[in-house]
């Protein structure tokens, strides 16, 4: 028993206990999350699925430390983050998490290099070492020649590669991908998903929100949400 508990705590990276999120919409309350309890293991590749309004975006925001629970507990990397203040949540995102978005969310006036360097800037890295890191990452996602370009000069696939490089800059344990292929054609989408798969193979935990089955097929586990609660879980045994 004791041994099992120890090994579990080593493997668990995310743990939700009766997580609830209630939004006040005028006079009525909306249960975006209605009591979710789950654990994600280190190195897993999850797809969170569900129709719109199912609570998958809220789930993503809570797990990504962008939003706080109304009640319940959220343990991230063995740390209870449900009671943290805004600054500490920022610190968690900065040090442990990486984000990839459907609309890439690059800063238009900054070059590719500057976009990739952004987390390092907030981590307080020196200019020379962060430039070096940005070059490394650009090479990893195959964009070495584009470092001085602005996002507007890139294709969608290239922009998403920049976003991935940026998400990797702080060497996070978990990468959140919110509909990462939503704005890409199928072929480019497959490339991006391949890249995510590769990162998962290198030990990163990946949590992806999508509503497309064939995108979700790249994940190893799928969490189906419905009306703010977990509908079902499928895929490999945890």
């Amino acid at each position: 028993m004791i041994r099992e508990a120890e090994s579990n705590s080593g493997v668990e990276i995310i743990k939700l206990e009766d997580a609830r999120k209630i939004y006040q919409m005028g006079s009525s309350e909306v249960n975006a999350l209605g009591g979710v309890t789950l654990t994600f293991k280190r190195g897993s590749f999850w797809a969170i699925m569900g129709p719109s309004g199912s609570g998958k975006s809220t789930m993503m925001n809570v797990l990504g430390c962008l939003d706080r629970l109304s009640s319940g507990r959220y343990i991230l990397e063995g740390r209870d983050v449900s009671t943290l203040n805004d600054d500490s949540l920022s610190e968690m995102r900065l040090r442990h998490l990486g984000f990839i978005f459907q609309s890439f969310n690059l800063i238009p006036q900054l070059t590719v290099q500057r976009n990739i360097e952004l987390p390092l800037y907030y981590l307080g890295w020196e200019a020379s070492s962060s430039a070096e890191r940005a070059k490394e990452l650009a090479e990893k996602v195959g964009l070495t020649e584009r470092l001085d370009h602005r996002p507007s000069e890139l294709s969608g696939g290239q922009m998403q590669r920049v976003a991935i490089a940026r998400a990797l800059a702080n060497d996070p344990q978990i990468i959140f991908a919110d509909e990462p292929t939503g704005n890409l054609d199928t072929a480019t989408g497959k490339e991006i998903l391949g890249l995510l798969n590769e990162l998962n193979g290198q030990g990163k935990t990946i949590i992806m929100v999508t509503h497309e089955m064939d995108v979700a097929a790249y994940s190893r586990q799928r969490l189906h949400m419905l009306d703010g609660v977990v509908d079902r879980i499928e895929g490999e045994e945890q």
Partner: protein
Amino acid sequence: MRQIKLARNILLGMEDLLLHKLRSFLTTLGIVFGVGSVVAMLSVGEGASKEAMDSIRKLGSNNIIVSSAKSIEEESTSTAHSHMGIYGLTYDDYARVTETFKAIRQTAPVKLIRKEGRLGERALELRIVGTTPVWFDLVQRPIVAGRVLIASDDNGRAPAAVLTEWGARKLLAAENTIGQTLKIGGDRFEIVGIVQSESGQAGNIQIPDQEVDVYIPINVAHSYFGDIMARMTSGTFERELVELHQMIVQVNSIEDVEPTAKGIEDMLKRFHKKKDYLVSVPLALLRQAEATKRRFNIVLGSIAGISLLVGGIGIMNIMLASVTERTREIGIRRAIGAKRRQIISQFLIETVVLSIIGGLIGIGLGVLVPFLITYFSDMPTVITVASIVLPLVISFGVGIVFGLYPAIRAAKVDPIVALRHE
């Protein structure tokens, strides 16, 4: 380390501003003109007041000047035919004042006479100033050539004359003029020296150098020309008896100035039936000028304050628009892990950089304008360190004050909402 980080943040802020060159430029215009007008107005004001103060200071802050003045009654009756006006300070007044007050260090009497004079071929109307050697102590003027009056001139009734540089030039005199003879009326005077002219107007108290002045010993003036002056004014023949036109009194210390002036005033009141004298104190004028300057500065300050307020509001307006426009960027930065205060400092630095650049351009403009004013109109302008540093500090302050609210607004952006923002 912190300085390096700050320098980097400032550079990043400048990069962002350079992305919108025209907008940034237009935004700073308010500050540019605000600061520019402050610097320009300060320097013009400073120049004017410096000129006034200098001329007052030249009268000596330890001096009291007592002048003869036609009383009001005298003014009205003097229109009568062949009336002889008798007024002003007397030799007795001079002696009394000199003897009575302990605080007085020295006094110089001044007697003014207008007469035609001739040097060689050149004839001009002169203003003859009869005085004692003390005068040259009280109203200090560098000697250009020769010497000033000395006690032996006065006591020995030597017909010595000192010219001013300006007067000498009018009389076409050169340095070798020293020792030559200047004929005044029928009398012959020896030119013993030339002193520097006083530039600018010193007001009506000091003898302005717009005339060809000749300084001669007062005893000589008295015995040669007497005390009665006759002249034709608007068809009437007018005669005046004035013994002394002016008395310059120097007291020992600045604290003695006002009590002594009061004492002289009281004494003259006792001996004069009419108020035919005027006691003026350069120190009081100086104080008055300083008060005027202060008032002027308050007015300037208010105008400057208003224009900087307008400039600041302009900056705030644009920064608020910029925050709205960059909501998504803020959201991205926050999602990546930027803390609220880092967003605040980003926007605050941009505003401060913007307003300081505006301030610097404004100072450039504000320095150029007085320069042009002086160049084209001979009006003196003075640029002090304060008139440059102050606007710079103010523009920094404007940046902070008017940048804070937009920056706080930026930091309050909810990353979740911002990331959905299109």
